[in-house]
């Protein structure tokens, strides 16, 4: 008698398992005709929000002069000590010099091996010289390549999808020619 009971309960169990598994399967099947959520990166562009804190760019003003005045505030605000700056003076008149002020950054490096992309440098900068771009593709082969210098950071500006150089910035942008990032800004 008890064997019979056991068999009955085992069969019941199997039926129950099959039923609930089929129920789960129905969820999976119902997803097949719906829109795919995956993006075939890198063939398709990824959508990125404007606030995204990606690789920085150093800004220039509307005349194409570097905004950075080498005040070291970004380096002081950086929690990861990722920024290295050497300041210098350029006494030439405005039209000839590269910075918008007499003081400019001779060396400006960000070590992306240290940077944690917190954005405190951007908040701190009094001249809006340093900004977060939207680049996130920076795989390299050696750690040393993660240290990005000033020319690289300046050229990063022209990679931003919505940056269009003004007439006065045009020669500079042509000199620092960069491919646009393959992203959609939202």
């Amino acid at each position, binding site marked *: 008698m008890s064997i019979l009971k056991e068999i009955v309960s085992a069969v019941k169990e199997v039926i129950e398992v099959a039923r609930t598994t089929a129920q789960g399967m129905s969820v999976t099947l119902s997803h097949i005709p719906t829109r795919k959520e995956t993006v075939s990166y890198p063939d398709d562009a990824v959508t990125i929000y404007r606030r995204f804190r990606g690789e920085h760019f150093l800004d220039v003003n509307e005349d194409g002069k570097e905004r950075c005045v080498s005040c070291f505030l970004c380096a002081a605000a950086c929690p990861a000590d990722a920024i290295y700056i050497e300041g210098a003076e350029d006494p030439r008149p405005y039209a000839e010099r590269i910075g918008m002020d007499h003081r400019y950054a001779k060396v400006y490096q960000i070590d992306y091996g240290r940077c944690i*992309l917190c954005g405190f440098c951007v908040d701190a900068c009094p001249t809006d010289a340093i900004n977060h771009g939207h680049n996130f593709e920076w795989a390299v082969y050696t750690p040393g390549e993660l240290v990005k210098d000033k020319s690289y950071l300046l050229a990063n500006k022209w990679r931003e999808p919505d940056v269009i150089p003004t007439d006065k910035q045009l020669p500079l942008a042509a000199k620092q020619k960069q491919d646009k990032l393959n992203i959609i800004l939202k």
Partner: protein
Amino acid sequence: MQAKEIVVPTSAISMLRKPDPLSDTQMTVSMGPQHPSTHGVLRLELVLDGETVIRAIPDIGYLHTGIEKTMEKEKWQQVVTVTCRMDYLNSSGNDLGYVLAVEKLMGVEVPKRVRDIRVLLTELNRITSHLVWFGTHAMDIGAMTAFFYAFTQREKGLDLFECVSGARLHQSYFVVGGVRWDLPPNFLDLMTEFLDGFPSFLDECKRLVTGNKIFQRRTKGVGVISKEAAIDWGLSGPTIRGSGVDWDIRKSEPYSGFDTYDFNVPVYHDGDVWSRYLVRMDEMEESWKICKQAVERLREPGPYMSDHPKLKLPERDLMKKHIDVMIHHFLLASEGFTVPVGEVYQSIESARGEIGFYVVSDGGERPYRVRVRAPSYVNLSALPAMVEGSLIADVVAVIGSIDIVLGDVDR
């Protein structure tokens, strides 16, 4: 069944004992640190008799980052960049605990809108954190598909974080005195869109995993910890609520205005993996409810930062025009602010349990000491008590059910 009779001491002394060399049925196996089911780099030393676990000894420290020490080097405001890196799945919860502690020490009141933003984002973070747990826990037990659906939803949640704070995981969005920027204009609509789609996802989960008989058989009665033992071990969060203890810091010591929200604390009484599973599934629903209420409250604009002059960076236009404002900006950005001498403990309910920040200030620009009471660490310590005597396959289920994050364990 011989293993059931062995009385297993789970005190620290048991860690020193070696398996009986004369017994040829016992074997010591190392599970992890490179094991997908240990959710990070946890190593478990398992003493087995056949398939039965006789002793389990967690070996931690592989992910030690020295974050508590690092905090002593950072300025008060910069510390939020490392708090979020401890428990990387629940980063805004960690930030919140720290900033609340410092605000308590300074006696700063934050505007109502800030409190609501913080509630909204921590609850959203609780959802995304539980989604990772749901996906990985189901996958550990053998349900592969649930993982993909959970991560699809989580991705949408992370997109919202990206929209509001600029980073998907390490937001560093909460700072002492408020939040760093106001919400972006379309954020509440995106949030509503996400919240509207969420119940149908939960419903799918119920059909896919909760109702599944195999899943239930794998989890019911496994890894049981009694109510008394759970209290003795000092467990917190969903792990203790699965053992029938109705204890949630959002209710018992409300912070950031949680007392003004209408939500329930799900409690289940069996103390097994299944109970803990149900607690978290219900919790996602409750978080969804809280988010809904918070979105409605945030529709009206308001200040996003307390106007304490030492906390808020000056308006950028003013700063560029007036030299005195510029000097103030320079001092704030380079030296930060000081916090009165004192010490404070502030705990909040993170996705894993009570995360507490004990902050000591010596009156300087940097914390003198920050000690973190990490929920994962305490919950993990009860793992041997849960798995000893059960089968080795159940260890995987139990680890999943206490939902540890190794970054939180080791700090």
